[in-house]
Each structure stands twice: as C-alpha cells, then as structure tokens.
C-alpha cells in the first residue's frame, strides 16, 4: 500500500470539434478509498474514465493511473493489468453462455480468483447455460460485475454499476464494493444513485459540463454544508447575505433561505444583527448539494 494517488490528472481536456467535453480537469483519487464520480448526463464522466484507461486520447493535459502515464501506450497497458473496469454499456459477447463468458475471462486475467467467481455466481443466481444476449438488463449487469469482482485488482473503475439492478442487487453491489475496499482495492465509480453514494463513499467528485465543481470528503460535506432559514420582521435584503461560503440566497417575502458550504456562523451573526425573528439551521443531504452545484454552474 502506498499513499500516492491512485488517479491524478492535470489540466486534462477532451474536445470534440468546438465542444469541450472535459475542461482542465485536475482530479486526484486517493488510494484505498471509495470515491464517487457524480454528474448529469453528458457531464463528461464516461469521457474522463475512457481517457484514464487510455481508450481515448486527451486533447490536452496529462495524468497518471496507478503511477503510470495515461498518454504512454505501454505504461497505460501496464496499469490496465491492475485495473478492473466495468463499462457503462456492459459489453459482453452475446453468443457466449454465462459459463463460457466466466471461463473465458478467467483464462485472461492473472489475478483471477475462481473461488470468488463461484461465490458470486451463487449469490447472483445467474443461469449458467443461458446465452448472454438472452439475459435481462439486470443479469447482464451482474455478469459484468462478477467478471470485475472475481479479480483482485488494485483499482476498480465502474461506470454506473447499479444501472438495471433491483434493490436487492444494489444492496449486494454496495456490500461487495465495501468488501473490495476492505481488501485494499481503490474504488472509483460513477453513479446517478445519490442515496447509494451517500452511504458508502469516502469522497465525492462532482463534474458539471466538463468541469470539476466539488472534490471533497463526505465527512467534510456533512460537516460544512447547511441550509439556514431565516424570518425577518420586514422584507430582508438578499445581498446582505452574499458572503464567502454562501452558495445561494433565496427570498420570499419576509423569509430568506441561505444555502451555505461554510461560514454558517457569519450568517447567523448577520441574521442576529438584522433582527431575525427565527433562525433555523438544517443539515443538507448530498442530493441537495448536487442539485445546487449543477444549477449554480
């Protein structure tokens, strides 16, 4: 185990013509942690992941994955040997059966664990004889996850791993991710399921229109983000609350709702000075932080 970042990028850019899908991305994913990668559809998550894996070339900038440069084909290949990756569309060979697929993948990877594969196969209840093209969306996802989890990678990169899974499947997935992390694997996954992320992630990165807007530990987000609802005797002045750490201020009559990423004390002090008749401070969930972040941008 080292403390060097599992993933690190500097000014990573990907342009398609005049459209910048990823803009000046400085990403740092800590080792032995679970990091969630959030963003709306088209925010640039999958493009970023594909650049990290050497599947598409960056237009500018550089980065390393497990200490190997992503721009160097040989180094990138070396890194790929230590990474399990589950792609967004879960590409598998439709003409193979579940059993053939597992045997095929097992012959491929040096870090393959037969016992784990059997255990997961039993837990997921996948039909061995069925052709992959006849699997339901959820089963297909499970098979793709099985292939990733049966290895013992240093880094696990999952692009929307819970897509198509039922609540039981999602719970099993989260448990497996937690278990993988406990074995020392670094987990980096993109997701739209904010409630899941909120439970298991150590850190969260929020990408919006190709830009990294938030890169913080969930502990930090939980401790610093607050919504402060204020009531005043007369209509308050919104600009009074435009200060450092205040993400947004909304007014309705005598009420103000302040969304703060810090500096809560200063807000309370100002509210006291302006003779607020009610001050309520409430914690903010990751869903609100996410919505506020992508809306503000």
């Amino acid at each position, binding site marked *: 185990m080292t403390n060097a970042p599992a993933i690190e990028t500097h000014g990573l850019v990907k342009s398609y013509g005049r459209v910048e899908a990823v803009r000046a991305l400085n990403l740092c994913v800590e080792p032995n942690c679970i990091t969630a990668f959030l963003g709306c559809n088209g925010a640039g998550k999958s493009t970023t992941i594909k650049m990290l894996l050497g599947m598409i070339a960056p237009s500018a900038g550089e980065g390393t994955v497990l200490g190997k440069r992503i721009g160097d084909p040989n180094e990138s290949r070396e890194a790929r040997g230590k990474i399990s990756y589950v792609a967004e569309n879960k590409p598998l060979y439709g003409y193979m059966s579940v059993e053939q697929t597992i045997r095929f993948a097992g012959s491929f990877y040096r870090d393959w664990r037969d016992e784990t594969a059997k255990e997961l196969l039993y837990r997921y209840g996948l039909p061995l004889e069925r052709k992959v093209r006849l699997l339901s969306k959820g089963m297909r996802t499970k098979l793709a996850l099985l292939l990733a989890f049966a290895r013992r990678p240093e880094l696990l990169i999952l692009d929307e791993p819970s897509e198509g899974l039922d609540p039981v499947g999602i719970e099993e997935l*989260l448990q497996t991710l937690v278990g993988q992390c406990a074995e020392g694997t670094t987990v980096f996954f993109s997701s739209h399921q904010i409630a899941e992320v*909120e439970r298991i992630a150590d850190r969260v990165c929020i990408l919006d229109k190709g830009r990294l807007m938030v890169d913080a530990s*969930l502990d930090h987000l939980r401790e610093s983000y607050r919504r402060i609802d204020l009531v005043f005797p007369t209509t308050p002045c919104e600009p009074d609350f435009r200060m450092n750490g205040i993400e947004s201020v909304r007014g309705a009559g005598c009420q103000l709702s302040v969304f703060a990423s810090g500096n*809560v004390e200063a807000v*309370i002090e100002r509210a006291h000075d302006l003779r607020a008749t009610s001050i309520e*401070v*409430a*914690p903010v969930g990751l869903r609100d932080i996410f919505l506020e972040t992508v809306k503000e941008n």
Partner: protein
Amino acid sequence: MFFKLNPATGQPLYLQLMQQIRHAAETGALRDGDQLPGIRTLAEELVVSPNTIAKAYSELEHEGLLELRQGSGAFLCVKRRTRSLADHVHGARRRIRELIERLRDDGLLDEEIRRAFEAELLHPTEIVRKP
C-alpha cells in the same frame, strides 16, 4: 450489538459510530473485554466504507475505550473514565428535563422546543467541540 448510521444527519458517519459505541459502553450493552466486529465485517454489515469503521475504531483507541489487537480485532476497555462519563450523561439528562419543564411552563410546544434544540446542536461551534 446493533449500530445504525444515518447518512442524512449532517454528522460524519465515523462520529455517529463512535457515539453509539460510547453509548453502548455507558449503558452496559457492551462490557469490558467485549469484542467488536472486524472492520470488514462491520463495514459489510452497515454497508459503509471500511475507512469509516477504521477511523471510528482508531479514534476510540485514542480515547482509551478500545484496544486494537493486530489480527484479532477490537476489544472494549471500560475503565472508570467511562463510568464517570455515564454519570455526566445522567446529570445532563436531569438538567435537560428541568429546562424542558421550564420551557413548557413558558408555553412553548414540544415541537418548538425540539426544533430549538436541533438548531442549537447544529450550531457549528457546537459540532467541533469534543465531548
């Protein structure tokens, strides 16, 4: 031992776990020498990052409430300090009860009292203060 972590309370999960283990020691649900589940086992059971469990265990070891033995897990060491903490909690409960009675006498509804308590507890300076 049952622990329940709530991701939406505005408090880091490792702090919630620390408090619940402390509380279990104070109430006697966990006793001196009791073994806590391993990091991986508890992480899978609570479905939280193993780093959350590791951080809570290591902070409690720092406080002297847990002893971490290499390879064999975490053991509780309930010393006099914990019991005096239990006395503190007992005293605090009594004072809170008295305060609530006074507020009710002043005509405040329970819901208003609860909100006032919650608002004060979420005050940032209160959160960082260590018990």
